[in-house]
């Protein structure tokens, strides 16, 4: 038996529902594969969002801080930009405890990259991490993990 699925039923037209279904199929299947973006909330109730934040960062090799490490950062970047200082917007040096501070950093996506020397293993260490600074509190903590 031959069945023509596109044949018009008596007294009705298939064109409009068919077109609708087709458009739905195309739009659903072409959706980007992205996680739903969570709606950011301030860290503390009653707090408001900040346009600029203070960064308190640490350069760490596992649980050991890396004193005097060089930290490079780049705004608007989620991927590792590269190992050359030219790949970054700016540079800051960690103190003798491995801590670094940045004031008035605009919120947004950043990539932080640290390099230094781990005396415990007598070797240079480096590594980076992408960070999304929401501005949900005045200070944001950034942990830059490095390894040999």
């Amino acid at each position: 038996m031959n069945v023509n699925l596109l044949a018009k039923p008596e007294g009705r037209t298939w064109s409009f529902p068919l077109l609708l279904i087709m458009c739905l199929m195309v739009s659903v299947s072409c959706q980007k594969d992205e996680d739903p973006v969570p709606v950011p909330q301030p860290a503390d109730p009653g707090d408001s969002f900040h346009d600029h934040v203070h960064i308190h960062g640490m350069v760490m090799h596992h649980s050991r801080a890396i004193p005097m490490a060089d930290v490079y950062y780049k705004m608007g970047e989620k991927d590792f930009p590269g190992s050359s200082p030219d790949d970054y917007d700016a540079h800051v040096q960690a103190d003798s405890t491995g801590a670094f501070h940045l004031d008035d950093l605009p919120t947004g996506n950043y990539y932080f990259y640290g390099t230094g020397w781990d005396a415990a293993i007598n070797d240079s260490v480096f590594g980076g991490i992408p960070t999304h600074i929401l501005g949900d509190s005045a200070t944001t903590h950034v942990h830059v993990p490095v390894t040999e």
Partner: protein
Amino acid sequence: MSVKLFQWLFLGLTLVLSVSCQNEAFEPRSDSSVLPEDIEPLISTACAVTGCHDAISNEAAAGLDLTDWNTLMAGSRNNAVVVPYSPAQSALLFILNRDEDVAPVLQPTMPIGGPYLSEEEVALLIDWISAGAPNARGDIAFEQIPQDQKLYILNNLCREVAVIDLVSGSIMRYHRLPEAQEFGFAADIVVDPATGMWCVLFANGWVQCFDVRTSLPAVNLRLPEGTWRSLERMDDGTLMAVNWSGNTDFQGGQCALIDLRARNYQSFEFPDDQVFFPVGWTGSATAGYFMSAYLGNAVYQVSLSKDGEVIRMLSLDGEPFDPQAGRLRPFSTILSPDEQFLYVACERTGEVRKVDLATGQLDRVITVGYFPQEMVIDRERHILFVTCTEDEETFPGRKGSLYAIDLRTDEVMQTWQPGYQPRALWMDGKRQFLYIANRNVDPQGADEPHHYTECEGKNGYVTRIDLASMQLDDDYRAEVSVDPLAMSAW
């Protein structure tokens, strides 16, 4: 164009578009790179995210790309992060785990800032690694590695044997050794191609051998009591074990010639007025067999056909023979490629002494770093490599050095600091690498371990020299278990 034809064309175009726009996650994949469906979400959401352990950014994340099963098994700059069947040696687990009762915990817990894996997810990871960490097809990494491509590393203080694939350089397996107290510490390891076994010598006189294909126990021999220290492969396919100190009946030590095929041995005992603390063994059927003794000032030529009788003593210092002199502390020995000379590493004086086998006289003294231990010869380049495990002078601030001696001139030609307390050596002539096992056991100054094992102590690590360039391979460092004391391969 008729309406019907238009409708068919439109339907076809829509189908093509909808299929081609489907998200990649919906595509069936059956290649070897796919992680099992219960493990893949853990890795992809916790690790292989943008900017971290993905294909683009992994260089700044320990060089560890966790995009798929193949890259995961390739490991990080510190070598394997998942060792099939060995969750206790899989650092990926440690850095995702937060419960020390379940597995070691390595800081910082990943992903930094969370969300962290749940207890159930960590348990899933442990089960997966315990089952061999297969891919979605059920393939287990390194399952088909040829026997002559495996380097066995004995971790003395952890009673484990790490196996490295000599092609990829990856740690591919760990094998637990018997915990039995009566075995004593694991002293040496030898791979024996003739029988297809790798054998471990335990200090209390046990020799346990395992099949290289299955690593299942194959031979278990009980030697006399003592403090057995070294195991050497002889050119006729037998093994020679050396007992540092004898039992109450004879203080001079002994050797045991082991026939693995017959599963028996013949022991030779030495009187203590002649030999004290025998430790090293080398030789060949043509040149003869030579044994060093830790306290003497001579090397002993031993006749196997005369039940281990000492047939000649070769002076190492030109002084009258004294079995307890203790000035030199001869340790390991090795024949020159032409079998005309014997090189002897003398711990106490930081020297390699060269003896002329034709005259029986000391030919030369070559100064190296303190505490020379193991030696190996690159016959192609005529180079003698020596590890000086406790040397603190050649590279101040570090402990240990590797010396290269040109055998044509007997001059030191190059030195390296290959790692902390280097000791065992293995020459991979096929791929032109010299592997060095760095013990890293000195509690006062050893390198920090990065990852932990079930047993206490700092992990050791294996490094290597590229023989073509004679440079330390800066890109290679395989962290192994505690105290890698000895190495052997096919």
